[in-house]
């Protein structure tokens, strides 16, 4: 990209304009380099982040190897660190949240994309976007003061009473726990599912819907059996995005999960998640191994969300491309 400026020896207006031009080009050179540096710093910082995570967990990785993921003892005093309870808690709460959020989110997206008149749909979408902007600590406050008491006084006893024969709903119920955290997470990720799904549903070509209706399908049949399958990839993308958010969520979860490293089949039991244990123990970690184990947990979280986000993006792009072209002409 270097431009060589040749100095013109002859004087006169032509020469002056040529050197003027070369100064201009140099201005561009500088601008290009400066902006390049800033852009490169983004890459630099990202690489540095991965590096720090990798290096910062070296001790723990070498000490525990893959057993890190198989043991469930987390004992800072005896320097035994097993990540299983946290991985379990993270996966369980994420699963519960998706089980609640996906049907609700897709249902709402269908309503917004297929049924609601344009202005109602846009207004509701505006509110959904605002919901996505609510910080997680506020959801945590909602969780502690509204959801937990509800769970403790009404929902959990009701579940134990009616479904207590299932190991899912047994044991003491304090209001906090996997189910509560899953519910709060569900509330947090629904806006993501709705926004993205609504957009992909809106991008399905009109004539798909019309073709179904013209065959004598009811509105629901044309929506559920034609439009939604057409947008299938993008909807899965939205679910992956939601999952990535649920896995990495820290504040709201740590406020309602109970912060006890147990692995229990019961959803009513308190538990722990990767992000929550990092948040709680990092500043008071006893010793280098403790800190490094926590960093290793951070590395795990990073890798998980990295894969999920990548998949999500691929899927969402795939649907938008399909909407604009249907095979060979």
């Amino acid at each position, binding site marked *: 990209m270097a431009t060589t400026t040749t100095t013109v020896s002859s004087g006169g207006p032509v020469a002056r304009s040529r050197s003027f031009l070369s100064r201009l080009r140099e201005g561009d050179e500088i601008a290009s380099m400066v902006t390049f540096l800033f852009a490169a710093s983004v890459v630099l910082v990202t690489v540095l982040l991965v590096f720090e995570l990798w290096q910062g967990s070296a001790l723990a990785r070498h000490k525990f190897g893959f057993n890190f993921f198989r043991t469930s003892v987390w004992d800072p005093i005896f320097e035994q660190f097993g990540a299983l309870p946290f991985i379990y808690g993270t996966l369980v709460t994420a699963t519960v949240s998706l089980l609640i959020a996906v049907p609700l989110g897709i249902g709402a997206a269908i309503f917004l994309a297929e049924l609601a008149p344009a202005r109602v749909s846009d207004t509701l979408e505006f509110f959904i976007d605002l919901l996505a902007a609510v910080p997680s600590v506020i959801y945590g406050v909602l969780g502690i003061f509204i959801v937990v008491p509800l769970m403790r006084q009404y929902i959990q006893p009701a579940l134990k009473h009616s479904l207590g024969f299932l190991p899912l709903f047994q044991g003491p119920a304090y209001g906090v726990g996997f189910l509560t955290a899953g519910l709060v997470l569900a509330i947090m990720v629904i806006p993501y599912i709705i926004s993205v799904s609504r957009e992909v549903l809106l991008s399905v070509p009109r004539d798909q819907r019309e073709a179904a209706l*013209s065959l004598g399908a*009811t509105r629901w049949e044309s929506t559920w059996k034609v439009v939604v399958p057409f947008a299938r990839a993008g909807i899965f993308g939205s679910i992956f995005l939601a999952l990535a958010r649920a896995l990495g969520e820290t504040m709201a979860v740590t406020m309602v999960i109970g912060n006890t490293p147990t692995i229990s089949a019961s959803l009513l039991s308190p538990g722990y998640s990767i992000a929550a244990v990092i948040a709680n123990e990092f500043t008071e970690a006893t010793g280098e191994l403790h800190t490094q184990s926590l960093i290793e947990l951070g590395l795990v979280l990073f890798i998980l969300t990295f894969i999920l986000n990548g998949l999500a993006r691929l899927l969402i792009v795939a649907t938008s491309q399909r909407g604009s072209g249907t095979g060979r002409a």
Partner: protein
Amino acid sequence: MHATVRPALSVNLPPIVTNAAARETFAGLTMRMTVSKVNFFYGSKQTLFDVSMGIATNKVTSLIGPSGCGKSTLLRTLNRMHETVRHARLEGEILLDGQNILAQDVTAYRRRVGMVFQRPNPFPKSIFDNVAYGLRINGSKLPLAEAVEKSLRHAALWDEVKDHLQKSAYELSGGQQQRLCIARALAVEPEVLLLDEPCSALDPISTAKIEELLVQLKDLCTIAIVTHNMQQAARVSDFTAFLLIGQLIEFNPTPQLFTTPADPRTEAYITGRFG
């Protein structure tokens, strides 16, 4: 395809049909569908003015006219697709077999009048599932595989796809996809088949195949086709209606309309003075 057809009710033919031979032809016809004094509004804008005509049983009727004349709008009222658009309002009467189509349940009605769209729009499913879609929803008298084969044969597509029924519909060429859409529409055994410029996105060879197909399909059902291509209308249809800015200018048997048009505006259009 359906056994009893009630005798035609008189159609308010536009006063423009003056040709004696034409009147004779009309007198002996049964009209599967009749359109009487239809006015169509999109919001406050009116796009069809007092249109009256008929779609003759087991014949091909084409709607021609320049862009924006309302021919697609008119076609879409025939299977009530206009109801999917907010602010669309229809005034007037449309009858199928003598019964007011607006008084029936729309889902049940749409099965009786099928539609093929301008660009091929198969569902993202296999060839088989595309054709079977309408059957699965509405129920089928024949076993599914038989009904699908029957439709694909009617659409002159069976030989080309019979060994590839599970393949995605998107692997077919454009012309094949359009014939698949025709098969899909035929599967539910409609009484009338509406086609909205079905060949405008296709190459000449595919177009020729579909035109050939339409002539054969007459025996199966009544056909109405919107086309931009006058030569196509002349090749394929028995009756032609010419619309201009939302009004029906002339409605005549095709040979008459193209050789001795009754209205000077029709003549101007078909001789290419505007378009």
